């Protein structure tokens, strides 16, 4: 094609021969396609520079049979394509890449907030119209009930009819749409009785108005429509509010980076990185993609991926994995090995996001119940309408009244809305705390499984080394000044700890002949003395300490050992609180570790829990398997098997990438405090669900009986039913809000305890 040639030459863009077929596989394409418009795909497009490009893109519509229409927005670099029914997205995207444009599909979540706001807008208009009409109908109605002269009564009914028309033909459209969609799928829908009541009541009223009798229900119809639209508006606004702020992928996206472009480094976005890009990042930034060190080596905190406690030195040319945090004084230069989407951390996060925006199996169950409930109510109403008048020998109009009231009052809206609402509130609440839960089923499992395994190193201990004193010898002020002067030049994290510890001694001495042997130690000439700091082995100590995870450094002057400095991997702050809380809830706690049993006994004594030491990874796995059902909380490689075996696996911060792949829960805050909060959240979900299901069942039952007995009319029913939906929304909001307040204070107290550790760097994501 002539056009293709021109563009390829003109723009000289790399036409990547990527495989787009995943866009045609429903499961994988799911996150990119919206359920309401499965033929639409939104892409980010690069390379569109002029109106000529737009013309060229638009010319595809005729050439690619799978493409129905295409919209380019040059300003924000977006491309919207619509495929013909039965067409394949892959064919279209391939054609576009062949034209030389780089495209990236955007997940529908990325623009769902705008879609959602359009939905809220439409519903708001419908609600406003219904409310205005309802208000005026009620004014007329009240006068009629108050005893209007007969001649005016007819006039008022006719005016009510005029006012009810906008509701029937505009406000109710969303209900009709739901029913039509459900009928197409041949499924019952909770809106069916509502539409039956709204349309049936209106038609009956018009008929009666023409007949001249006064069984008119316009007020009930208007009230029902308004309150229902109101409660749905409330629900939708809530969803919009809670879900719009959920962009987990920001965890790695939007890292502050500088991208090399046209001869200089400029501020850029990590999600735009592609293979081969050069970029720079500063201290404490999480590496968004797998990348190769280009200019210099640097220290990298691998705790998120490997669970290792100490930052590792990477040399120039080595490849650093995404998710590792750069620990360096200056900006470090990398070359990207691929895009953000290729990393396993990102894939895990996407999985979690998909879950939040999809429905869990419990939600689907509640949906099912609501559907059958709907069918039952409609049958019962038909019975009341057709049989009751003859059976109890009551007026046919009274029969209509009662069945209308029954239909209205027992609509299972609360049942259908409550469960998904609570679960999404719980998932979102968990997210806000820093817990990524893969599936809402986890909540149910966490409630029922009472055996919890905890790994020790990295899970119960901080995985951070803090200076805790001299294991041997002490240093004079002069010696400390020399030590600090030397350590200040080192990039090693333990060196930073010391510099922070003895901050008042900074800058007192100058160093000559400084030499750093990465991973081994540093040396230099100070005050004419050959000073050296290096690793020290525990076995050389006079009294070896039993404290696990302690690191030793030795300080020498002229090869004369002056002191041994000790750094300890402390237990996380909240172990005590978490264990006692879990035990109160009836959980059995078992600590498993590859560490020596002797190093675990102090845990056993301190927390009164079972400990298992000296375990190989396979033995850990065996132990978890024998104690199923169980929950496993772990981080490292050695927990991999055990976590795979457990019914619920929780990966704490600092977990390795393999664990992230199948962990049900990923905790992104230091400590295990959130494990307990997650368990509490799980219990709260159940408590709220029971409260709400019980409430709506009793409510519907009582009101249903009253309606059949004729104690409440259609108008009262129209008032009472949506009130139950609103009550349910309120109960779940209040229930969850109470909970999240506790969370916030908990996290704050945790953060306050962290600062000295963040200086050290390992593990703490601020």
């Amino acid at each position, binding site marked *: 094609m002539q056009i293709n040639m021109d563009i390829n030459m003109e723009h000289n863009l790399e036409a990547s021969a990527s495989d787009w077929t995943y866009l045609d596989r429903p499961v994988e394409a799911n996150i990119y396609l919206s359920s309401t418009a499965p033929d639409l795909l939104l892409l980010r497009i690069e390379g569109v520079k002029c109106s000529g490009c737009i013309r060229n893109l638009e010319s595809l519509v005729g050439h690619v049979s799978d493409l129905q229409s295409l919209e380019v927005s040059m300003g924000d670099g977006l491309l919207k394509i619509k495929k013909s029914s039965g067409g394949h997205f892959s064919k279209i995207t391939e054609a576009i890449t062949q034209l030389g444009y780089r495209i990236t599909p955007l997940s529908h979540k990325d623009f769902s907030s705008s879609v959602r*706001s359009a939905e809220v*807008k439409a519903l708001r*208009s419908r609600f*406003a*119209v219904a409310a205005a009409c309802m*208000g*005026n109908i009620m004014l007329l109605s009240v006068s009629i009930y108050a005893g209007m002269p007969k001649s*005016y009564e007819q006039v008022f009914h006719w*005016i009510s009819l005029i006012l009810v028309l906008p509701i029937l033909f505009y406000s109710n459209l969303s209900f009709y749409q739901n029913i039509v969609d459900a009928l197409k799928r041949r499924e019952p829908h909770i809106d069916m009785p509502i539409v039956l009541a709204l349309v049936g009541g209106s038609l009956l009223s018009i008929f009666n108005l023409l007949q001249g009798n006064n069984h008119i229900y316009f007020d009930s119809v208007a009230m029902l429509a308004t309150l229902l639209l109101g409660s749905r508006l409330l629900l939708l606004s809530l969803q919009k509010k809670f879900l719009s702020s959920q962009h987990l992928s920001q965890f790695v996206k939007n890292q502050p980076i500088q991208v090399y472009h046209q001869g200089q480094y400029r501020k850029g976005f990590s999600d735009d990185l592609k293979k081969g890009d050069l970029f720079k990042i500063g201290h404490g930034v999480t590496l968004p993609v797998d990348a190769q060190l280009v200019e210099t080596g640097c220290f990298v905190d691998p705790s998120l991926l490997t669970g290792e406690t100490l930052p590792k030195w990477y040399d120039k040319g080595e490849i650093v994995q995404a998710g590792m945090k750069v620990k360096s004084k200056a900006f470090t230069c990398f070359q990207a090995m691929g895009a953000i989407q290729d990393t396993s951390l990102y894939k895990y996060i996407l999985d979690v996001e998909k879950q939040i925006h999809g429905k869990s199996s419990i939600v689907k169950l509640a949906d099912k119940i609501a559907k059958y409930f709907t069918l039952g109510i409609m049958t019962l109403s038909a019975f009341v309408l057709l049989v009751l008048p003859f059976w109890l020998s009551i007026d046919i109009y009274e029969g209509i009244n009662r069945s209308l009231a029954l239909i209205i009052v027992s609509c299972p809206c609360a049942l259908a809305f409550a469960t998904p609402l609570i679960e999404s509130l719980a998932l979102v609440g968990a997210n806000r705390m820093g817990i990524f839960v893969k599936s809402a089923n986890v909540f149910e499992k966490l409630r029922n499984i009472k055996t919890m395994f905890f790994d020790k190193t990295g899970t119960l201990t901080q995985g951070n080394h803090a200076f805790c004193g001299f294991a041997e010898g002490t240093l004079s002020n002069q010696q400390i000044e020399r030590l600090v002067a030397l350590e200040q030049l080192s990039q090693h994290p333990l060196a930073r700890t010391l510099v922070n510890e003895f901050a008042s001694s900074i800058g007192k001495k100058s160093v000559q002949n400084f030499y750093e042997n990465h991973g081994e130690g540093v040396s230099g000439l100070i005050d004419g003395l050959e000073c050296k700091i290096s690793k020290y082995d525990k076995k050389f100590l006079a009294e070896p300490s039993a404290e696990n995870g302690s690191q030793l450094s030795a300080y020498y002057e002229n090869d004369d050992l002056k002191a041994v400095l000790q750094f300890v991997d402390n237990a996380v702050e909240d172990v005590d609180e978490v264990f006692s809380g879990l035990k109160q809830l009836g959980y059995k706690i078992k600590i498993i570790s590859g560490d020596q049993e002797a190093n675990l006994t102090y845990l056993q004594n301190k927390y009164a829990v079972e400990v298992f030491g000296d375990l190989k990874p396979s033995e850990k796995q065996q132990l978890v398997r024998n104690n199923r059902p169980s929950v496993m909380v772990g981080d490292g490689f050695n927990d991999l098997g055990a976590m795979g075996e457990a019914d619920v696996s929780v990966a704490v911060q600092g977990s390795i990438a393999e664990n992230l792949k199948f962990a049900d829960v990923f905790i992104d805050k230091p400590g295990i405090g959130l494990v307990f909060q997650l368990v509490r959240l799980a219990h709260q979900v159940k408590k709220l669900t029971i409260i709400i299901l019980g409430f709506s069942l009793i409510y519907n039952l009582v009101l249903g009986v009253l309606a059949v007995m004729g104690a409440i009319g259609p108008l009262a029913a129209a008032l009472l039913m949506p009130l139950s939906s609103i009550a349910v929304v309120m109960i779940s909001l209040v229930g969850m809000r109470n909970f999240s307040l506790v969370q916030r204070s908990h996290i704050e107290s945790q953060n306050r305890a962290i600062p000295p550790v963040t200086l050290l760097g390992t593990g703490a994501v601020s």
Partner: protein
Amino acid sequence: MTIIYLMIPCTLLLVGGFVAAFIWANNNDQFEDLVTPA
């Protein structure tokens, strides 16, 4: 009481006016952000 035949159409006009104003505001994104300062 015949005044009601004048008043009711007036009310309906008033209602229509306010609903129209609301829908205009809604369609012009006046309710999209109720938090940040205008």
